[in-house]
């Protein structure tokens, strides 16, 4: 269907713009990320500005979205998760595990994928392991659901 194609093209554009933003922001340099997390050492607060800039733009877009009956290319907003406080302990544990890995390597998922372009063998090792991690958790979820719990 043609709307699938337009949605894919928007996603393509968003991916390109996102990667460029990560590059401009300095997020593709793991040393910057480590510097941001190194509060006991030589703390580099710059990455906080990345979050501030992105959150301001997105919060404005969200105000716009709240006034729109539906997204421009879809029939309703049902694919946006409802904001809320529900966050079970297992999910909190997930956030801890993610934070530890992020601190160890200085990479979160976005920069890890974009940096594949560098053809650094270490980056490829990291990103491959991350993708394996994604799949392992999907397998775990599937097993849990097939057991009916």
């Amino acid at each position: 269907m043609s709307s699938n194609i337009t949605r894919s093209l928007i996603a393509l554009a968003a991916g390109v713009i996102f990667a460029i933003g990560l590059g401009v922001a300095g997020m593709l340099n793991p040393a910057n990320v480590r510097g941001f997390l190194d509060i006991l050492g030589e703390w580099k607060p710059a990455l906080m500005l990345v979050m501030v800039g992105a959150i301001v733009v997105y919060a404005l877009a969200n105000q716009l979205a709240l006034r729109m009956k539906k997204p421009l290319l879809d029939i309703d907003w049902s694919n946006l998760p409802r904001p809320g406080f529900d966050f079970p302990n297992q999910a909190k544990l997930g956030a801890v595990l993610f934070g530890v890995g992020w601190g160890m390597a200085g990479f979160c998922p976005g920069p890890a994928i974009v940096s594949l372009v560098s053809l650094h063998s270490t980056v490829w090792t990291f990103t491959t392991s991350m993708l394996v991690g994604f799949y392992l958790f999907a397998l775990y979820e599937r097993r849990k659901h097939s057991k009916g719990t």
Partner: protein
Amino acid sequence: MMTALYGGLIIGLAAALLMLFNGRIMGVSGIAGTFINMLFTPKARTAQSGEFSWRGFFLFGMILGGILLSKFTNTFVDAAMVTSNPAVIIAAGLLVGVGTRMGWGCTSGHGICGIARFSGRSVIATMVFIAAGMVAVAVANALLNVSGVGQ
């Protein structure tokens, strides 16, 4: 310092596009995780080809953006991995992969989109993973100092 802010504005714009046009959250771990899962689940892939396609295009766009960066900037020349110890890198990659899926999102989905939509769970998640990252870096630095390898 200012480039960090500009980069953030650009990232926000990308996320805004995906929300306003497609009604989707720009959460990289969710997009890539679902894509990988569908890649190995042919039934889901054919039943929901649109779901598979936009995610693939988004990820391809990220690679394309990376190629543009490598052509016109020195982004990847400056970037040095903080460690090249394969055991550390593999463990870190697995932790990030499993952790972001188990934690319902990563820096983009929780840290940017969720916080900007005033979602309480994303505020909690972001505080938790930043705090955990800070502890990990502090511990890593302390270990390096003890063993006298680092710096």
